[in-house]
């Protein structure tokens, strides 16, 4: 008789949304791994059909609270292409500032509150406060700062409507911008201290395997969080309009999911992919952090996504300072108007947890088709593959203590956003 064992982790804690992990072991070998999405479908792609671009912008950020402005930004980039809107350079800078704010909000939430408790042996960040009071207090400050920028640019901390087609409803004053810059300068020290904190952690290696990476190629020579080209770790570059040929949807018998694969294999997106593919473009303190932390192991170990996010915290704080300097010397922004009623547009940004695609077809001012591919949809296969490798290694070495925690840490490292992927429900074919 084969021995069979099942490990079920449900609910998967300290992630956004309702999910779980199921691992089946037969004869001391991993026979099945499923990252389960337990939220109901919301069918956003169908909800926006028949609506105007502006209405779409009100609705789609509700896909996800943590990265609501990334959804807004990706939608803006797609819709503005479709209806022929070209925004001025000042508006572009304000959007970059907005996006930096979201990166800091999301990354600080993930690093200190969702991921770090695992490495330090706690159930949650509040419980860490006794021993790591200073880190928790400063992490709250950093997160609050990210939220402040999201509120300033978005119009509200979560689900603000200030970003509109062609620009913003209202822009911050020069005084408010100067204040933001001062705070970014103060927080930089803590972001750098975090690089040292993470650099001192021992990172398990049981799950290590080769994978592929994908992210946007930012325009120009700079590091950044958006672009019209997708780059992959095989050195290829793909115009975003071809996204359907790059990211292939896959259906399997145990699980029907709009799961993405590249070249028929799983891939990683997110801070780790961005730092590995574009890290040579980093400057300043972020470059120093990159030189200090990045090793060959990063290509095989998803836990370093936490470290990559820490590098991006430094990059974004420096980015805020630089962007504010540019904005203070810029002309006033104008709201750009649509030049056409019909068209097609693919908008891509890097959400904190990875590449986010919004594709729209607009006819006579109304959306006729929409397609959203979220980072979590892209990396679920990759999580499963790493859990499988890790499980096999741990079984072979008979290291079964805390095996659930080891699996959870892999999943959490990706910072999965289950709300975003809620149209990925586990299904069984009849």
């Amino acid at each position, binding site marked *: 008789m084969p021995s069979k064992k099942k490990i079920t982790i449900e609910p998967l804690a300290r992630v956004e949304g309702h999910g779980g992990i199921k691992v089946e072991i037969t004869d001391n070998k991993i026979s099945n791994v499923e990252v389960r999405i337990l939220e*109901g*479908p919301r069918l956003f792609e169908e909800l926006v059909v028949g609506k105007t671009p502006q209405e779409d912008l009100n609705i789609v950020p509700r896909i996800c609270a943590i990265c609501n402005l990334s959804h807004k930004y990706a939608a803006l980039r797609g819709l503005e292409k479709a209806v022929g809107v070209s925004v001025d350079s000042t508006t572009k800078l304000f959007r970059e500032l907005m996006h930096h704010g979201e990166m800091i909000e999301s990354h600080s939430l993930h690093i200190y509150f969702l991921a770090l408790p695992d490495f330090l042996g706690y159930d949650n960040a509040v419980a860490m406060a006794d021993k790591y009071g200073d880190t928790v207090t400063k992490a709250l400050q950093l997160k609050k700062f990210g939220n402040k920028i999201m509120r300033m640019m978005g119009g509200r901390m979560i689900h603000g409507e200030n970003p509109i087609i062609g620009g913003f409803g209202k822009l911050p004053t020069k005084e408010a911008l100067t204040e933001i810059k001062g705070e970014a300068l103060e927080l930089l020290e803590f972001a750098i201290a975090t690089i040292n904190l993470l650099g001192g952690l021992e990172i398990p290696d049981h799950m290590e395997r080769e994978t592929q990476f994908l992210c946007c190629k930012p325009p120009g020579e700079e590091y950044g969080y958006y672009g019209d080209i997708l780059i992959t770790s095989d050195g290829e570059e793909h115009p975003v309009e071809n996204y359907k040929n790059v990211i292939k949807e896959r259906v399997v018998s145990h699980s029907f999911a709009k799961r993405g694969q590249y070249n028929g294999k799983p891939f990683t997106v997110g801070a780790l992919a961005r730092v590995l593919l574009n890290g040579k473009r980093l400057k300043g303190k972020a470059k120093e952090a990159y030189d200090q932390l990045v090793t060959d192991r990063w290509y095989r170990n998803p836990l370093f996504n936490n470290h990559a996010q820490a590098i991006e915290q430094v990059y974004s704080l420096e980015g805020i300072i630089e962007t504010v300097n540019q904005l203070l010397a810029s002309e006033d922004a104008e709201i750009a108007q649509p030049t056409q009623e019909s068209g097609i547009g693919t908008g891509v940004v890097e959400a904190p947890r990875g590449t986010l695609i919004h594709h729209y077809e607009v006819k006579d001012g109304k959306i006729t088709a929409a397609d959203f591919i979220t980072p979590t949809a892209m990396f679920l296969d990759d999580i499963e593959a790493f859990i499988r490798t890790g499980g096999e290694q741990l079984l072979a070495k008979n290291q079964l203590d805390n095996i659930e925690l080891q699996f959870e840490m892999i999943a959490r490292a990706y910072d999965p956003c289950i709300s975003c992927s809620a149209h990925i*429900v586990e299904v069984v074919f009849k």
Partner: protein
Amino acid sequence: MTATDKPKIGIYGFTGCAGDQLLIIHTEDEILNLFGAANIQSFVMASSNPIEENLDVAFIEGSISTKEEIEHLHELRKRAKILVAMGNCAVNGGPQAMYTGDGGYEKRLKKVYGEGVKFMTDPLEAKPIDAYVDVDYYLPGCPISQPQTFALISRLIHGAIPEPYPHPVCHECKLNENRCLLLDETFCIGPLTLGGCGSACPNHDVSCVGCWGPNEDGNFGQHIKLLESFGIPKEEIMRRIRGFGGSKIIKFIEDGGK
């Protein structure tokens, strides 16, 4: 107070964006106090190892969108003395409920998933939680507001009775001394929408989109006529009013249309 006599609280998320739970996590000035004042037994977005026992208060975010969620909701209702619907999806069904009841759900589902699949748990057309269980308090918002949330939590954990807040967005917009967008014949549904957001959107010169759901005292009939007089097609007005009110808003639209 010891951990045992502190009020026991559970915070749960069903189908939604998790924005209401996130808002609680994002209350940087209050989150440590909250964990100190109450016994947070279950809040899986923030902490591992939940304790699932009887609760003094259960806060529930999200719409009910699968069969498994109905069962879980009933189970929570049984062990919670007080149950709070938290956020628009729990209160009204959220944006995913904007077409609930129109008969097109199966078609939309098939369009996204294709034919011939059986789900592990049956998906359901999104509904608010009071479609299935009694709700003691409604905490509206998309997302909920921090001052309202902490006022409610404080009262509930100290045994005080929460106060209703029956004011539209316009009430707050006036207090903020914004110029009324309707004076410029711009679409806005602040008069029909429950306040509490502090008129977040009109403060930025952008229209209220109705994300807190219907304000019971709103004069729907007259406001729809006003928007029509701006030259906005009735079809567009109705579509935009229905964005965040789920099927609950239909009653107000129908009553107002009389």
